């Protein structure tokens, strides 16, 4: 790393037209060649604006930005600057211009007039750098999110920039995709000496950098090595940033009298715990076993799936099997988690739960399959939810949908009405056309209030004028307004910052039991599932891999890793401790885990 600054921002200010507050205020920082810088901040803190001023997509109002000594604010040299500073954006779908990978990667070099043979070499190099050589002739529509985002990185690399800016490029990806992209970026930084600016709200990603900037309300409020930044625990929380999850284990351990430094990695924490225990002379121990609480329930709204299979585009050359022989039981009143990669079939599964996809028997032109020579007739799937039999053509699907609420991924994109009130009332009026105005108003009011919004303030606003978090709440209100017995949410926290995530999960717990009996969430965030769900199932390649109490599932860490899935932080630490003879059994929530470790330290169950 040389000392030559590659980017310099000096007292930069920027405000969007018609905005009351500045998006950036007095921002000063510089980046050295070869540095890996991370920028964190809550949604709306100005970090994406920061990315856009670096290559002249936005022109600063005050101060100046220099890239390799060139002043960016002049507007004329925008192309010249963009050759040196490449940005990868958030949504992998919205960055590609061509339907074939190599054509898309070629787009940048074509724009700056690189010669044909050289473009070919650059495509080879860029695709190799992101590990996507095999997909050169593929079409983006068939790639996973992580793969698409790696193509987007390759598209920027092909311009051969000096600085690679990632503007929340991992926010919309599942853990596997996120890992793929982050690994590519780290390797580029280490091996090719690429300067990287990683804008993110995943604290775990920010830790990988040499240096971290924290932004709040358009200002840089903290700066330093990731470790030093995360020392400022309480201060970070005032900036609406969540601490890395590990700190919520460290704090109670310290309270229990253990001597633990701030660390960021599970192995380091495990080592410290062992050290503490060894000092006390504890070399092997076992916590009290984890006993799942037995719940009483009426079994009125159980979900029962038997032998469910589903194939998209049947009988076409593009047929793809999404589910094969799924059987699953979810009790009335559970907080249930469905875990799996994007494309594992989990979304297909839940779409059956409120008949968005129907069983073959319930479809119009259903013919009973006959037994073929030597083979028995294929067993038909069955699916019952409470008293509804979804394999019956005559099932009242409308009544079913009123009782099984479904919040799909990114539900804010389904808002359409002129006012929030009308949007929330949409479902209610569809299901109960005979309700009086007053009844509708009361139901909508209750629903908007339970999701934590101010009814009087928001009811006449256009849903399109709300902030991202508010939109999502309105969308959820629009589903729960019918008071469904079962509420299903597909990735309810996707794309939100840590604070928004926490708030959504708190909301779900508030709804659970009181407003909706059963809550089923689909997630690929293992920590989220561990903290919230009592029971879960893992879907892999269209099959139920396992279905059990969440805590028991995560004991099978090795198997999960082999599926390419992760385990929650608590399970990782428990694994490390287990290797040293300290067996901690917990329900995998951070609170319970910390309490049990503290218990061992305090001499219980030793």
């Amino acid at each position, binding site marked *: 790393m040389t000392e030559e600054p590659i980017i310099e921002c000096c007292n930069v200010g920027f405000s969007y037209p018609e905005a009351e507050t500045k998006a950036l205020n007095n921002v000063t920082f510089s980046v050295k060649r070869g540095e890996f810088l991370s920028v964190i901040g809550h949604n709306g803190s100005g970090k994406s604006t920061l990315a856009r001023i670096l290559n002249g997509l936005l022109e600063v109002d005050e101060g100046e930005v220099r890239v390799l000594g060139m002043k960016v604010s002049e507007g004329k040299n925008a*192309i010249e600057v963009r050759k040196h500073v490449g940005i990868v954006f958030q949504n992998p779908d919205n960055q590609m211009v061509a*339907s074939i990978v190599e054509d898309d990667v070629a787009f940048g070099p074509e724009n700056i007039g690189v010669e044909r043979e050289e473009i070919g070499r650059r495509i080879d190099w860029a695709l190799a750098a992101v590990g996507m050589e095999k997909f050169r002739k593929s079409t983006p529509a068939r790639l996973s999110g992580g793969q698409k985002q790696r193509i987007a990185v390759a598209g920027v690399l092909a311009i051969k920039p000096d600085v690679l800016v990632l503007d929340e490029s991992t926010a919309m990806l599942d853990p596997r995709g996120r890992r793929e992209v982050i690994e590519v970026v780290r390797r580029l930084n280490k091996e090719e000496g690429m300067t990287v600016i990683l804008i993110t709200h995943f604290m775990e990603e920010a830790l990988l950098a040499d240096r971290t900037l924290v932004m709040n309300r358009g200002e840089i409020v903290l700066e330093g090595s990731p470790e030093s930044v995360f020392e400022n625990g309480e201060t970070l929380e005032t900036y609406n940033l969540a601490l890395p999850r590990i700190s919520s284990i460290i704090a109670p351990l310290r309270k229990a009298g253990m001597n633990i430094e701030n660390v960021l990695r599970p192995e380091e924490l495990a080592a410290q715990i062992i050290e503490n225990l060894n000092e006390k002379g504890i070399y092997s121990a076992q916590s009290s076993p984890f006993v799942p609480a037995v719940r009483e329930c009426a079994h009125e709204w159980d979900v029962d799936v038997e032998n469910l299979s589903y194939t998209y585009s049947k009988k076409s050359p593009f047929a793809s099997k999404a589910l094969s022989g799924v059987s699953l039981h979810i009790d009335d009143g559970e907080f249930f988690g469905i875990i799996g990669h994007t494309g594992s079939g989990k979304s297909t599964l839940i779409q059956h739960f409120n008949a968005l996809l129907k069983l073959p028997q319930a479809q119009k032109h259903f013919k009973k399959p006959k037994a073929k020579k030597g083979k028995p007739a294929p067993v038909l799937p069955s699916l019952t939810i409470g008293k509804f039999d979804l394999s019956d053509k005559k099932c009242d699907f409308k009544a079913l949908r009123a009782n099984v609420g*479904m919040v799909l991924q990114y539900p804010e994109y389904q808002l359409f*009405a002129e006012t929030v009130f009308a949007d929330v009332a949409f479902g209610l009026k569809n299901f109960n056309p005979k309700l009086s105005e007053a009844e509708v108003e009361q139901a909508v009011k209750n629903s908007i209030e339970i999701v934590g919004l101010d009814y009087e303030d928001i009811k006449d606003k256009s849903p399109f004028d709300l902030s991202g978090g508010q939109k999502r709440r309105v969308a959820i209100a629009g589903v729960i307004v019918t008071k469904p017995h079962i509420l299903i949410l597909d990735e309810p926290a996707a794309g939100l910052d840590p604070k928004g995530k926490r708030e959504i999960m708190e909301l779900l717990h508030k709804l659970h039991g009181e407003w909706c009996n059963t809550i089923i969430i689909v997630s690929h965030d293992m920590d989220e599932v561990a903290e919230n769900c009592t029971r879960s199932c893992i879907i892999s390649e269209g099959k139920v891999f396992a279905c059990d109490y969440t805590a028991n599932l995560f004991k099978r860490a090795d198997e999960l890793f082999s599926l390419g899935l992760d385990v929650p932080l608590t399970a990782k630490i428990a694994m490390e401790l287990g290797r040293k003879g300290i067996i901690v059994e917990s329900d995998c929530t951070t609170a319970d885990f910390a309490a049990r470790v503290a218990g061992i330290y305090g001499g219980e169950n030793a």
Partner: protein
Amino acid sequence: MLNDVTFGQYYPVGSFVHRLDPRFKILALIAFIVLLFVADNFYSMAACFLLLLFAIAFSRVPVTSVIRSVKAIIVIIIFTAVINLFFHTGSHLLWQYGVVKIYREGVIFTVFFVLRLFFLVMASSVLTLTTTPVALTDGIESLLKPLSYIKFPVHELALIMSIALRFIPTLIDETNRIIAAQKARGADFESGNIFKKIKAVIPVLIPLITSAFRRADELGDAMDARCYSGSKNRTKYKKLAFGWRDLVAFLSVAALIAGVVLFNIYAYRVYPPFYEYIKVY
């Protein structure tokens, strides 16, 4: 419900016809259509049919999918065929009922006309079945290239087509997602009269349009960030190249042209007594 993964008709097998240069395929289709209209006797038509058969056989697409394309316009064909049959005049009256007269020339013409349309549609579908929309766009762009000298925005047009193709699957996915979401909120897209159905589309259309604008915005930023500044000083990576397959195919098309021209001129010599039944007036 819209189909989920695919659009267009492309049938993915790597056959001889699939690997032909898209420019050649477009030009060959145009030549074929012209020949269909130049042909004025059944010998020429049979030659055209022969080439079409070869094309289908070497494309390895199922014959059913080629025939399905004809089904789409069968009503129009029957309708025009009937009109032709009754209104084409000639000298050999075959059948008469009041003012309705059918002549032998009319029958010949109608059969000819129907074959012409069938072959035309089948040949077009061979093109779309064996050529990806992307390759078609590239082909069209390359063929239009000369027009850029008269300031016709060929590059911009090609980019628009390419982006449109790129986003069709994305927007179809999105539409399906929104339909599912509104169905889950009790929206009903199937029952009710036409006005109710139109009204039911609004909750799908508005989110779709908003999202398309949002995507366009983000795409614009991403293109800018990748140094896009119009067609000035731009190079092009993709280059279409003719290969031996194109030569073979070109020779077959050339043979067909020669065949049709020769038959048009010398058809009466093949078997003179037959001539008046195979010639179209």
